[in-house]
């Protein structure tokens, strides 16, 4: 009898839960690094998501509710964060994250729970590989690394390259691998590849070695905080070669922290920057909206990707006609020519976004959008 009572009680609770999930709100979870070494990018992306949420707060007549969890730039925390969003908050879709390593850890959980996840700026190919429920609004590392190599070799005519890679970071290793592949294929030579580990702050030994090899260009696929220090130390050690990096270096604060040392630094990024000419209508809308909401603060591509990740989910819900995870997943996979702040996005067979590679150079302490390049893979 008692067992039966308990069982029925459990059933009632279960039903209540089910009813709650089918409530008149759409629940979207966000997991981003708001603290730790990737906090810089994570916070900007969150601001982009929140701005999009403020702009469009309802879909199919339902209110959209955001649940934000900090993944602390930590792989274990990332998996926990997604677990919490799914089990406790019962979200129908998830946005996140900055950082490929974090996206992979969180993606596993999402995939098992059959909840769609849209990555913001996680560019490692493995993030979506073999996954049914994982998508992203950014392109992938082979594309970006090859873009940097193509630009260095063909546009700038640099023949000898050195690499400084964070071995503990999937993003860094991936970008370096594809830069090297493309650069040597084009006819260039990689004179040395040196490593460091996330969290290191002293790069003098590696830089001294690299300087002695006399490369034309140094490629540093590092995160922003480390990249700025690497460039400062390189300048102190008397480096004169060109330095290039990837999208993780795209941050408005780079000139504050880097000072004179970042002058001339070029990095690949997604096709958005507040300084770009011929901005698309959506990019313009995003930039104006940002400036109205955060006066005195420059938008950047991470904020734009956060914005796009939110919008692309709403777009999928709209096309699906309902906010159930399976329907959202199906609609996301069929996204074609979605117009966002970072250009026109088509989700391809591997669930990655297809869009051109942008180039940003720092001139006179300012970030200048140089244009776009089609990488030679």
């Amino acid at each position, binding site marked *: 009898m008692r067992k039966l009572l308990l069982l029925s009680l459990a059933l009632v609770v279960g039903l209540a839960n089910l009813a709650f999930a089918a409530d008149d709100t759409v629940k979207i979870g966000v997991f981003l690094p*708001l*603290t*730790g*070494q990737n*906090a*810089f990018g994570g*916070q900007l992306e969150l601001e982009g998501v929140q701005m999009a949420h403020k702009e469009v707060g309802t879909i199919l007549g339902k209110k959209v509710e955001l649940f934000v969890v900090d993944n602390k730039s930590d792989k274990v925390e990332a998996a926990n964060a997604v677990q919490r969003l799914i089990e406790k908050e019962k979200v129908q879709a998830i946005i996140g994250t900055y950082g490929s390593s974090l996206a992979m850890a969180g993606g596993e959980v999402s995939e098992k729970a059959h909840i769609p996840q849209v990555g913001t700026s996680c560019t490692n190919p493995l993030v979506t590989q073999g996954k049914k429920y994982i998508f992203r609004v950014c392109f992938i590392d082979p594309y970006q690394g090859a873009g940097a190599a193509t630009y260095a070799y063909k546009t700038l005519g640099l023949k000898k390259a050195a690499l400084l*890679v*964070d*071995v*503990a970071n999937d993003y860094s290793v991936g970008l370096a691998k594809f830069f090297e592949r493309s650069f040597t294929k084009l006819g260039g030579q990689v004179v*040395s590849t*040196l*490593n*460091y*580990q996330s*969290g*290191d*702050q*002293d790069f*003098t*030994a*590696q830089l*001294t*070695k690299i300087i*002695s090899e006399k490369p034309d260009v140094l490629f540093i696929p590092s995160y922003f*905080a480390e990249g*700025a*220090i690497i460039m*400062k130390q390189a300048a*102190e*050690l*008397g480096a004169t070669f060109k330095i290039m990096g990837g999208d993780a270096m795209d941050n408005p*604060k780079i000139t*504050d*922290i880097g*000072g004179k040392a970042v002058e001339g630094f070029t990095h690949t990024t997604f096709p958005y920057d507040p300084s770009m000419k011929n901005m698309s209508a959506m990019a313009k809308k995003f930039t104006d909206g940002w400036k109205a909401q955060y006066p005195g603060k420059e938008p950047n591509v991470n904020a734009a990707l956060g914005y796009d990740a939110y919008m692309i989910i709403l777009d999928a819900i709209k096309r699906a006609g309902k906010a159930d995870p399976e329907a959202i997943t199906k609609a996301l996979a069929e996204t074609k020519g979605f117009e966002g702040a970072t250009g026109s996005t088509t989700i391809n067979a591997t669930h990655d976004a297809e869009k051109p590679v942008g180039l940003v150079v720092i001139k006179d302490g300012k970030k200048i959008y140089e244009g776009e390049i089609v990488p030679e893979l």
Partner: protein
Amino acid sequence: MNLATFIQNVLNSLTLGSLYALVAIGYTMVYGILRLINFAHSEIFMLGAYFVFWGITLVHLPWPVAMVLAILVTASLGVLVDQVAYRPLRDAPRISALISSIGVSFFLQNVAIVFFQAIPREVYRPSWLEDPILMGGVRVLPLTLFVPLLSLALMLALVYVVYRTKTGLGMRAISKDIETSYLMGVPVNRVIAITFGIGSALAAASGIMWALRYPQLQPIMGTIPGFKAFIAAVFGGIGSIQGAVIGGVTLGFIEIMTVAFFPDLAGYRDAFAFVLLILVLMVKPTGLLGERPEDKV
């Protein structure tokens, strides 16, 4: 490797090593007196650095004033941490104070994340530090000369305090036997407060130097230098001030020279440091200059 590159690497090692040494001295002092590994040392280090740059950017103090003030504020904070987190546990088993110090460490780090935000901030460096001096093919930062000298001066001053002053006598007495010191009329709590004050002032000084060398402030900036300095302290013989300096400098040399001579292994230089630490501890468990612990009868 040509001579200029080698000398450059020696200088790189010396800068990094003496920074480790500076942090390690603070660790080793508290340990020497209280047998307590103060994990909050890394966070005191971080706060010290933040205070200076606050003084400069918010209150517009001149450099030297901001630095002295920051050191004083940080020293008081260290004393406060002792009063709140360690003093109530003086008679408890040693592990309780250790756990308490881990708690303080997390607490301060999270407070810093809330108040300063997790995003890295730029550091303003006085211009005379920015420009490297060129000697042949070797580039020397003024800081490269300044930090080892400062570490050495602080070490000598500390050795003087510990071995030549009354407070130092108190410290040594407490380190031998805290209960008997009480009975003999040593003002134990005051001496311990002074120890924490000095230790924290050292942490602040090293935090400031670190921020000047690696110009970026963030709430987690103390963690890695803290760990490295802890290794350096153990390596040199924890509790020994001279040992901390030797340990720190040695660790700096190992890390830089590993990369210089085995560039392929550059990503694993921490592993090299640990392997050496393990080897030393296998041969000489008390560290290079550590004393053999006396058995209490």
